């Protein structure tokens, strides 16, 4: 992965920049020491590493603003970082950039149960929001697997999902407002505790912008009342195809479950060996369907799901009889990534989304690729919304295997696009999928995206090298090209 060539002049000025930042921040909030900087050298995509120029750890909006204003003025790049759990290299440091860690901004500022909102700083963890409101019967709905560690600031940057986003939406549907700092240090607010920001929906583009548009310093989220009851149904199928058909049939029956997850045979076996969730080992596909609501609703929906499963060839079907059992059904799914980590020295997690009906085809072609590359693959799948997580098993100590795994991954993602899907459902483009962007977007599409970037950060100082396969100068992108102007399409109706 080629990153922009580091600016040697900036690297040479490292000491002076550190001193300048120490005039803005408390001494201990600027990390200069090489060993301490090494802690930040990668995120959840550990195949890529880079030592940051410096690390700054502001503890207030004013400090974030001052750091950005200084860096903007002196042409120093910034890489924002939450908990560093990105799986796409979104927080991968730059040798000539300051990594801006937001972990110290970790307070819950306000909870309004009547208005059903919570105002938190970006370093609060995803689960931390739920922990703060659960005593009153509320929770924060998006629940990425990393929710114990990942921060809400990072969730905003990546538009994180989770197993319950099928029914309750992604981060973008659950965030009402942000306070953020632009690269020039100016502080703005988008949205608030009301619905729909006035003017352009800049909040909507901030969510999922991967740290390229601004640094979020406060987030207002919706909190929801916890459902009266929850039940999970665990269904085994003799083939992936039947599992996929069952998913389609459940949706076609007008049922939107709280969550609907599928695992293939390798994933089932890895998970069962790790957490002993009681998964059947003689099936090819395992479907977990979660239903929520009052008992009368859960009972009815459970019966319907069971009937649909039987019609679609299910060979086993278990319904959780207690909260403990429900959690044990989920334990295997939630631990699927580390479980796969136990059966292989390394794994590479992909994140394409496909139309649900293409599932069987995609899994078949993936199996063929697996044989061709000589690398195993295990699949966990947010079945309800078509978001695939193939885990490619490899050994980084075997020369060439990482390259092979990456090539395999690229081929999977291109396949996702080919069948009508997209490169990334929830992990972000980051550095990982940056060079695949042309598989989905042509130059004009990308230029329009980059013009939005230019409106926020015209010098490309915020998280450069991520998302866009090549950086074009904003001045060049701003030029207006007149294409003809006289009628090339005389048939265009004019009245």
């Amino acid at each position, binding site marked *: 992965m080629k990153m922009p060539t580091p600016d040697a002049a900036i690297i040479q000025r490292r000491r002076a920049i550190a001193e300048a930042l120490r005039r803005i921040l408390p001494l201990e909030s600027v990390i200069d020491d090489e060993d301490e900087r090494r802690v930040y050298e990668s995120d959840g995509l550990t195949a890529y590493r880079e030592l940051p120029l410096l690390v700054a750890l502001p503890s207030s909006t004013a400090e974030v603003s001052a750091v950005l204003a200084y860096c903007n003025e002196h042409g120093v790049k910034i890489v924002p970082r939450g908990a560093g759990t990105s799986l796409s290299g979104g927080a991968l440091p730059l040798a000539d950039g300051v990594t801006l860690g937001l972990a110290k901004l970790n307070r819950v500022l306000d909870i*309004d*149960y*009547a208005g059903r909102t919570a105002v938190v700083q970006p370093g609060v963890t995803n689960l931390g929001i739920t922990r703060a409101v659960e005593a009153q019967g*509320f929770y924060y709905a998006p629940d990425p697997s990393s929710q114990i560690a990942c921060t809400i600031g990072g969730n905003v940057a*990546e538009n994180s999902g989770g197993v319950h*986003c099928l029914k309750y*939406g*992604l981060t973008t*549907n659950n965030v009402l407002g942000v306070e953020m700092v632009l690269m020039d240090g100016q502080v703005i*607010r988008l949205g*608030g505790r*009301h*619905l*729909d920001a*006035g*003017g*352009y929906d*800049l*909040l*909507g583009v901030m969510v*999922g912008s991967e740290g390229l548009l601004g640094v979020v310093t406060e987030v207002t989220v919706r909190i929801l*009342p916890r459902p009266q009851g929850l039940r999970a149904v665990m269904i085994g199928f003799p083939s992936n195809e039947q599992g996929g058909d069952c998913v389609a049939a459940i*949706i*076609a029956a*007008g049922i*939107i479950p709280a969550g609907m997850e599928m695992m293939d045979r390798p994933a089932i076996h890895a998970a069962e060996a790790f957490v002993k969730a009681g998964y059947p080992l003689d099936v090819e596909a395992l479907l977990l369907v979660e239903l929520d*609501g*009052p008992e*009368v*609703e859960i009972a*009815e929906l459970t019966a319907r799901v069971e009937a649909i499963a039987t019609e679609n060839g299910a060979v086993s079907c278990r319904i959780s009889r207690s909260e403990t059992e429900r959690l044990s059904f989920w334990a295997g799914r939630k631990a699927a990534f580390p479980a796969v980590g136990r059966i292989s020295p390394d794994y590479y997690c992909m994140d394409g*989304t496909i*139309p649900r009906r293409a599932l069987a085809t995609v899994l078949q072609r993936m199996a063929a690729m697996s044989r061709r590359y000589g690398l195993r693959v295990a699949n966990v799948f*947010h079945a309800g*919304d*078509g*978001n695939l997580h193939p885990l490619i098993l490899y050994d980084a100590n075997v020369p060439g295997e990482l390259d092979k795994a990456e090539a395999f991954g690229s081929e999977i993602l291109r396949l996702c696009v080919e069948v*009508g899907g*997209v490169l990334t*459902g*929830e992990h972000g483009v980051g550095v990982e*999928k940056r060079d695949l*962007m042309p598989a*989905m*977007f042509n130059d*004009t*599409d990308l230029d*329009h*995206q980059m013009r*939005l970037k*230019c*409106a*926020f950060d015209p010098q490309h100082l915020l998280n450069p090298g991520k998302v866009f396969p090549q950086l074009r100068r904003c001045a060049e992108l*701003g030029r207006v090209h*007149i*294409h003809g102007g006289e009628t090339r*399409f005389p048939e*265009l*109706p*004019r009245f």
Partner: protein
Amino acid sequence: MTVLRPMDEAQLVEAVAGALARKAPLELVGAGTKRAIGRPAQTGDRLDLSGLAGISLYEPAELVLTAGAGTQLAEIEAALAAQGQCLGFAPPDYARLLGAEPGNQTLGGVVAANLAGSARLTAGAARDHVLGFRAVSGRGEAFKSGGRVVKNVTGYDLSKLLCGSWGTLAALSEITVKVLPRTEAETTLLLHGLDAEAAVAAMSRALGSPLGVVAAAWLPEALTSGDSVTALRLEGLEASVEFRAAALAALFAPVPQSRIAAAFWRGIGNAEPLATETRSLVWKISVPPAAGPAVLAAFPEGKGFLDWGGGLVWLALPPTPDASAGRLRAIVARSGGHATLIRAPAEIRAAVAVFEPPGGALAALTNRVKHGFDPETILNPGRLYAGM
């Protein structure tokens, strides 16, 4: 005045590129039902997008539909209804409020205005349901964003940017939306006789309960034929709806109660309680739910009602040259939120900021975004803000 009516995307490119070359601004129109919203157009030529019509993809099992921006919403809703599906954001139709013929708006119009009915509270607005689009920017270039799947973080979410941009950034040619199954049953519980404060407290209590209330609105006595009513909507399986309705009724006993049919909500979404106030100016105000009653109380000369659990205030005011904008926006600023002047004569809309004007750094940023997509200001100039 020239009217350009492209029939496909290539012609749309030609129309916009031609306008760019001539520096001749365009007024973007679908069915034209919302032409009376926004600052009066400052354009000579009209770009009629109604020719970009038709449903090109509808896969019920995938919960996805793609249609030309000029497709009549009624056509889309009929196609969905035939499969037991619907648009989750229940797009309202302001035609009656604006004195136009109802049932005539386009998908592109609904998206460009980011409309949403009472279900906004729980199901989101158009912004939450658009998965992707194709459009032609003010640069005369066709581009796309998003896709046809719900889970998608590939690149910036430009769908959000175009929702609610009122045709000032790009002319939409094709839109992909997520669709939802229709619920099997629904019911609406009415609580009678609560004032605005008590109603918002009741709505907050209902929405904060695990009973799955999906919409909550309040109408004062002045806008009903009897008592004031606080309406709480439930949807789902029949048995579940009945169970929850009983639980909700018990929660609010001994407040007098009744039930009402679903048609009530279409009227609320369309702001029809104010449609008969034909001489009044009508504001649509979004605030935190607790702030709704204070906005109403500040205007005893007006008539209004609450939706979105108190967070949406519809307010009809006697006509004044400044539309009471300064006073209203000062009140809204206390709680945070924004106010849009939905109905007013053109001369008032020309003099008063129809949409909440952004301030300071946000205004500059808004201008830069506009400039990036429409550098020569040829798309709906001045419709959102003066000079932009």
